[in-house]
């Protein structure tokens, strides 16, 4: 929402010697592992207690996962979803950033189109999806467009704040020292926008993941969302959970291996 984009908080740890940072990461992973192990135990106990197919235990879900991998193209569906997420996310980041920067730099544009942004920010995701499928058919392009349109207003609102917050002081500094346009972009403008890109990316990814599943459920012949829908009709909870866990794993891997290191790098200069 527009309200919570105003102050992106750069939450990188301070620069530390590499060894200590690695140690802290190890400890964190250790605790997370223990905590998840606890969750698994509670889950297994509950499943055993209830003894129903509606709450399969970890072992049943693991077996369902193996069956899916062997017979129903588990990784193919996960890959299809991942590809859609990547495409829609990239599209939304590029278009949303361009739009947000334009609105943030030009008062006239902001007055003309700021209202549109509010409108699209509050348009329910499901409405966009349905309209895209109705207007453009049940196609891949319609699916990606639906996800991107849901996400673009968020990115735009965040980057608009970023553009508004650009420092006039540094602008003057660049002017006096006659920095080239490329140098200004590389050294002055983009580093100021980096925390805003990070916030947009993080919030965006969380949103895109969820919407992609709905888009697949409503009108795609493959992907995790499509599979969830199929197995929902069969009331096969174990398989549904098998897809859910694969999904969680991928999201977490992206968060830990891509987003966090990047954010740390972008804010390493802070005191």
């Amino acid at each position, binding site marked *: 929402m527009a309200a919570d984009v105003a102050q992106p908080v750069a939450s990188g740890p301070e620069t530390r010697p590499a060894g200590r940072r690695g140690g802290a990461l190890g400890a964190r992973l250790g605790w997370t592992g223990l905590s998840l192990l606890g969750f698994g135990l509670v889950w297994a106990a509950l499943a055993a207690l209830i003894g129903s197919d509606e709450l399969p235990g970890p072992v049943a879900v693991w077996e369902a996962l193996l069956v899916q991998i062997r017979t129903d193209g588990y990784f193919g569906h996960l890959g299809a979803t991942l590809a859609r997420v990547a495409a829609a996310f990239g599209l939304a980041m590029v278009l949303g950033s361009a739009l947000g920067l334009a609105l943030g730099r030009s008062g006239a544009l902001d007055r003309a189109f700021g209202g549109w942004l509010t409108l699209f920010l509050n348009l329910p995701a499901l409405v966009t999806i349905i309209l895209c499928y109705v207007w453009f058919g049940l196609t891949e392009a319609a699916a990606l467009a639906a996800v991107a349109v849901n996400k673009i207003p968020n990115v735009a609102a965040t980057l608009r704040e970023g553009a508004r917050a650009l420092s006039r*002081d540094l602008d003057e500094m660049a002017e006096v*020292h006659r920095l080239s346009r490329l*140098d200004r972009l590389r050294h002055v403008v983009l580093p100021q926008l980096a925390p805003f890109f990070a916030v947009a990316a993080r919030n965006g990814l969380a949103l895109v993941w969820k919407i992609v599943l709905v888009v697949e459920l409503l009108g795609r012949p493959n992907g995790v969302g499509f599979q969830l829908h199929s197995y929902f009709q069969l009331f096969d909870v174990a398989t549904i959970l098998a897809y859910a866990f694969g999904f969680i794993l991928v999201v977490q891997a992206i968060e830990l291996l891509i987003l966090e290191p990047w954010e740390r790098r972008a804010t390493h200069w802070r005191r």
Partner: protein
Amino acid sequence: MSGGLSVALRQKRFAGGPPVLGEIAFELAPGERAALIGPSGIGKSALIGLIAGLDRDFEGEIRTPPGRIAMVFQTPRLLPWRTLAENVAIVCGDPARARALLADVGLSEAADLHPERVSLGMQRRAALARALAVDPVAILLDEPLVSLDPASAEAMRGLLDAAFERTGALGLIATHDRREALILADRVLEFGGRPARLVSDRRSPLSRAERRARGAVEALHADWFGG
């Protein structure tokens, strides 16, 4: 005057407001160092901005010497996400020269630190090194010594002297501190009134060497400003 700075301002106002600067005319010869004094908020920074070409919205004519103009802002305005060496190198395009410039202002040890990790005095010196990286024919300084502790201010003063000697550039130094003006400048331009005008334009009787003596500066301060 050829090769110098010539200011013939009729008026400067910021959008919708009353005029901030009135008629102001003066010329600085090549190599001359002038201080621009007056109370805070009177428009010294505004005039410096006009001369630097940051603001072209004014009535009048300002002619700058052919060549690059350096500006040292009141706040250092370093890029916090780049090291001191990178900050200078971005301007001069040569990492080795950037380090040499930083060494000139006593910052060879700190060259690879980010600005937020060094003191304000060091940031100011890095900003001076960056300004000098353009090989200026004129150096504009906005309150170069403000909010520095006495030792840092003294060090910075020495570096400014050295920078002027080395480059032979003309200098215009805006300051609210009259003693600082007398120490740094050959000539003192005083702003007063609203809109601001030149109320006095005095040439210092002290030579550059004489100005280094505290007593001589105090005596001149008493003579010009009383007390």
